[in-house]
């Protein structure tokens, strides 16, 4: 299913939900509880916190459902509630100051190699195909996402994992579309940088193993 098809199905489900159609409640709870849980798990980092946030967010969603005039806005509406539930949860635990990612620090350097300009980055042409290595790559992706500053992480999760559009993400986070684009780019660059370090260290290990 494409992102567009998933979006249409979710909007259709929201229409059925507000119309009180049979089965819509159960389907909505199942689908959006899971979505909010996944989002909260990456935002909070703890299974129990994410369960609590997903539950609090759903309570809020049904409490305010009479205020949802446009079912096509269901996704940003639910994720705005989820984000606020995460923030409430965080306020109860640890306060983390906002961090900024600098574009310059995410830009790789280039050097000369045999008279040709070459970037100082890993070889991305052959990413690991074996299942165990793909799983390791997934672990690196998870860690890279979890380590992003909160303002960047929430944008990357909504855009690239949940498949919200730039406009939907801006609405969910109550920021401009320009802010979403800037933060998404920097978040992706930061994840890319961590993956690059991993690929280079892996290549280094392979070279050392071959030499032994």
């Amino acid at each position: 299913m494409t992102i567009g098809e998933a979006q249409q199905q979710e909007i259709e489900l929201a229409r059925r939900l507000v119309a009180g159609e049979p089965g819509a409640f159960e389907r909505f709870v199942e689908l959006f509880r899971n979505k909010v849980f996944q989002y909260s798990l990456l935002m909070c980092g703890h299974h129990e916190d994410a369960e609590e946030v997903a539950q609090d967010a759903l309570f809020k969603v049904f409490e305010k459902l009479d205020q949802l005039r446009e079912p096509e806005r269901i996704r940003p509406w639910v994720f705005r509630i989820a984000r606020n539930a995460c923030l409430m949860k965080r306020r109860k635990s640890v306060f983390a100051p906002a961090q900024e990612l600098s574009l310059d620090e995410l830009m790789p350097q280039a050097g000369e190699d045999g008279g040709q300009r070459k970037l100082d980055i890993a070889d991305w042409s052959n990413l690991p195909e074996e299942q165990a290595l793909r799983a390791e790559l997934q672990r690196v992706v998870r860690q890279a996402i979890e380590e992003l500053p909160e303002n960047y992480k929430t944008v990357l999760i909504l855009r690239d994992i949940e498949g919200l559009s730039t406009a939907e993400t801006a609405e969910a986070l109550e920021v401009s579309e320009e802010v979403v684009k800037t933060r998404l780019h920097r978040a992706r660059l930061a994840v890319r940088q961590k993956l690059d370090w991993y690929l280079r260290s892996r290549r280094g290990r392979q070279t050392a193993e071959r030499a032994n």
Partner: protein
Amino acid sequence: MDPGSHGRESECKRIFALLSEYLDAELPADSCDEIEAHLKDCPPCLEFLESLRKTVELCRGFRPGELPGPLNEAVRRELWERYQRALRARSSAGGAGT
């Protein structure tokens, strides 16, 4: 791409800032043309773009994988009651709000 050793330093830097919007097809056609013309003549920027494209693919394919535990019956009942209240409020107000 590399400030200091490349004559088109500022162009590489400007392109670098736009690569996600380029991948997401969110740039106007003239900006895309400009980026594509640059990429043709700049292998380091092209190589970097590919690494970013693969990063985005990996993020899009990533699923946290864990599922929440089963929904507590008391919580489900409370959600259902709130849902029913919301439906009554919608029908009496004719669906006002957001």
